């Protein structure tokens, strides 16, 4: 057993400095398209290539609705005029429903319990959420804890488009939570149904069923974006925008 102790000590601290400092390591985020300007043909091609309709057009200006972006990179690769790309990860934003659950209040600023519900997620979102519990991200240092029962949860983390069979469990989990409570939708599927919904078996995201307070876009959102979302939920970070701003000039 002593070997494990030595091994652990030798490994040193791997945990990210975020949110104290921005994480500078590469590969922590796939990035998101920002905006583009182009000729009529280029603009048309970009809008046409986007499989989920995330790219919105006004004149020759293109902006992105992050609720829909699934990181297919079709507006970046093999395109004549690729979209701008932002490699950040502070993507979490308040939704228009924010405040529907009336927020957590300052008493919860330093520590919250999180219950995760898989509403039909593909596994990548779950894997990224699991990383939060692991050395590189270690959410415990920020006062975030996972709980096995919604009865103790302050924040409900939902990934996936909410499949038909998961509607009831999700609703029951939400109802079982004590107030005050927050709902955080993680990933494009949870925000808009992504590539799966709406369909005969999937909803167009969590907000169809229960009010969502914090949205974390991405497919999947990298762990740092989810941490940003949790920090936003307890008002320790400010909200990003769910739509990219236009290109200036």
């Amino acid at each position, binding site marked *: 057993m002593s070997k494990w102790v030595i091994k652990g000590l030798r490994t040193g601290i791997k945990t990210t400095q975020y949110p104290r400092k921005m994480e500078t390591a590469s590969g922590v985020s796939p990035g998101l398209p920002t905006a583009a300007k182009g000729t009529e043909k280029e603009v048309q091609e970009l809008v046409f290539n986007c499989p989920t309709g995330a790219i919105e057009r006004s004149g020759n200006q293109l902006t992105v609705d992050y609720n829909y972006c699934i990181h297919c*990179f079709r507006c970046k690769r093999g395109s004549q005029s690729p979209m701008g790309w932002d490699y950040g990860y502070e993507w979490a934003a308040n939704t228009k429903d924010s405040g529907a659950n009336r927020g957590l209040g300052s008493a919860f600023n330093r520590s919250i319990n999180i219950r995760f519900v898989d509403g039909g997620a593909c596994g990548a979102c779950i894997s990224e959420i699991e990383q939060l519990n*692991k*050395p590189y991200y270690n959410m415990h240092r920020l006062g975030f804890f996972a709980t096995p029962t919604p009865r103790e949860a302050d924040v409900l983390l939902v990934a996936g488009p909410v499949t038909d069979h998961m509607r009831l469990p999700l609703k029951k989990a939400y109802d079982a939570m004590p107030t005050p409570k927050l709902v955080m939708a993680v990933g494009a599927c949870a925000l808009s149904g992504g590539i799966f919904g709406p369909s*005969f*078996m999937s909803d167009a995201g969590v907000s169809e069923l229960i009010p969502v307070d914090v949205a974390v876009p991405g497919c999947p959102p990298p762990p740092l974006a989810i941490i940003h979302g949790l920090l936003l939920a307890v008002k320790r970070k400010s909200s990003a925008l769910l739509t990219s701003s236009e290109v200036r000039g």
Partner: protein
Amino acid sequence: MVQSLNKATEWLNLSEISANRWPGKIKVRCKQDRFICHMECDKSIVADVCNWLFSELDYSFASLVVEDLASEQLLTYIFYGGFGNGLICVSYRISNSTTTVPSISNLIHAVDWHEREIEDLFGLVFEGHPRLGDFVLHEEWPEGINPMRADFDPSNPYIHREVDPDWRPLRIVQSPGAFMMPIGPVYSDFAESAHFLLETVGEDVIRIIPRFFYKYRGIEKIAEGNAVEHVILLAERFSGTSAFAHSLALCKAVENISGIEVPPRAKALRIVLAELERLRHHIGAIAGICSSTAFAVATSQASILEEELLRLSGVLTGHRYLFGLNILSGLSIDLADDAIGMLAKNLRGLMVELNKLKKLLYFSSSFLDRLEEVGAVSLEDAVSHGLVGPVARASGLLRDIRKVLPYSGYEKLDFTVPGEEEGDGYARLRVLFAEAEQSVNIINQVASSLPPGSVNAKSFRIAPGEALGWVEAPRGASFHWIRVGEDGRVLRYRLTTPSFSNWHGFHLAAENFAFQDFPIIMATFGLSNAESDR
């Protein structure tokens, strides 16, 4: 070598034998170059033919594909990897109005869940199957509405029916004081949605009633009518942790139909990326096993390696889970030589760490106590239940698609398929470690002699037709059947995933063990419900 020399003659024999056995009732058509053999037979002999392939010629069952064509229904049983090391599709046609077909799961138990799924989704009743209903579609789904039928409109929401309050899952344990211990669908800290009812009289699990498909998104249905490019996105995203393998299988199927030539560099890079995904998955699974035994230090150590691989994938390809890479005719991006160099260098460092972790784990008796002789699956059971991937290989069923149906250039590589015989949790852990090592070995081989050139074709045309794509996904053999219509849109997309195959045999391992072994056995199986439920 001997086997491959004999291959051509074996194929011929196959058609001769079958024609002699069932004169006039079977038509055999073999494509020697592709190792694919089609047998079109009469409904009355399909069970005999399948049983012949399975029990006499040692073929494994791959998939059952039902197609609701305009005028008739086509059922295809796909077998692979037997005597002749190829694929055999046994098919028969029935009229649109036929609702009952013979069940073969009495003979080949691996077909069991396929038949149950098709009964739910197509409304075809498999005569002789003792457990139909309540599988993909849960109790609130209205009777008689079958979403995979051509006439079902997937855009319409369906109406929930009133659930009978007396409805109960079937219990078969008749011991005094037996009860069902419910787990899920929302359980544990971070777990995929799945529901298990453990029949027990306390302490030991006597029988498991798994209730899955909480995550059923109807991928096969929503793929229909869409362009192939869109369906690639579905293949990639229905199971995010094995995205590259599944999108590769689909791309290969479509490339096969349309005769699209994949440039050699793309072929080689596909292997590199598929093995990178396997490596990352296996290390994640090892972390899962450590975590299930509440071994925090080891979990952390494995998780560090997992996150490092995720970051490495992100740096190399722009996406941590290798999304958006596979396109028809190759890859959407090329990897520069210095990126390949960096990959090789990083993997060397990772292997050193992984070997250290392996050694430490193999000498931690408190950890091994939880795995050894826990959740054992015998070779016989693995064969009869159609298990695949590392789970099957831990029980001695060494069938690896990369060897038996080589694709994308695996046939040119020198690697071994690790196997164990005990079939317990520890054997599964050892297979994961050994396969991870093999993956690094494969990446190194490919990276050292990467052919030059482009990674995709600039122009190609998607032809109509049907084909099967196959791949050894991180969790095991995966088969994607696709039929493309005249307009280039998908008519039928059938996904057979390793998680689906292996969940079917999960009860073999987890029954007759104590409750506290249940999560450990689950972790050593390392299955995904997203992949299984589709």
